[in-house]
């Protein structure tokens, strides 16, 4: 796997967690995501990438972690997925994708507005055929989360 193009996403993720939530996530071993694979996440934020490469960035959380991160931003307890949680994780994926573009400047890329998918064990389907999706698990002191990145013709395995 060519990790050169994964690193901007990893660095952007660590940066936003440190600045927003005062948490330093620890990256685990990246893996290739299988289409429609089951997982234990409760909510995902997705942002599309267009321009000189097509793809998407997805960040997935448990309800517990998404609520806890949101509570840090709104300074009050949050216990379930509400509008504030949706706002928070949408902004997190927006910042990760936008910041990662700095490390991918040889390609002119545009990012979409974020979308949120919620539901216990929801599935993510990636419609672009033969697009390798790299899953990047992170651990934090408050629980794990997962970043998935697919970029046509840029990220290869």
């Amino acid at each position, binding site marked *: 796997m060519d990790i050169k193009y994964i690193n901007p996403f990893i660095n952007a993720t660590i940066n936003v967690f440190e600045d927003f939530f005062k948490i330093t996530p620890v990256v685990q071993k990246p893996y290739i995501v299988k289409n429609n694979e089951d997982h234990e996440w409760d909510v995902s934020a997705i942002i599309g990438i267009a321009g000189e490469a097509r793809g998407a960035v997805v960040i997935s959380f448990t309800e517990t972690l998404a609520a806890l991160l949101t509570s840090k931003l709104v300074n009050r307890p949050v216990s379930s997925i509400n509008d504030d949680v949706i706002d928070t994780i949408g902004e997190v994926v927006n910042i*990760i994708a936008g910041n990662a573009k*700095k490390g991918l400047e040889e390609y002119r890329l545009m*990012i979409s507005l974020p979308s949120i998918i919620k539901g216990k064990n929801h599935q993510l389907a990636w419609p672009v055929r033969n697009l390798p999706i790299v899953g990047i698990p992170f651990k934090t002191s408050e629980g794990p989360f997962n970043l998935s990145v697919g970029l046509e013709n840029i990220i290869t395995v």
Partner: protein
Amino acid sequence: MKILVVDDSRIMRSIVKNTLKTMYDVDEGFIEASNGEEAFTVLENNRIDLMLLDWNMPILNGIDLVRKLRGMAEFKNLPIIMVTSEAAKYNVIEAVKAGVNDYLVKPVTEKNLYEKVKKFLD
């Protein structure tokens, strides 16, 4: 002193506002908008001293709002700081060419927001 904070994320607007409140006495002077079209309506009806503007928003995005405003005599000199996740150099160049006065990459911290804002408010 009136500051217009434009972002489709309510939490981001709140972070920017709360950070600025710790630095400046502008408690009564914040107006919020959640997209470029709303911001334009605010600008038409209020005297705004500084606009903090997100790039990626629904309906009318930040860069298109800047181009629209810079084409109008009454908003040619409105101070605009773009506050966005878009960190690529070509985005910064595009925004400066469109007419923003300054550019701040999210995530916003107290220090970098203060440094960008002070030259327009001091």
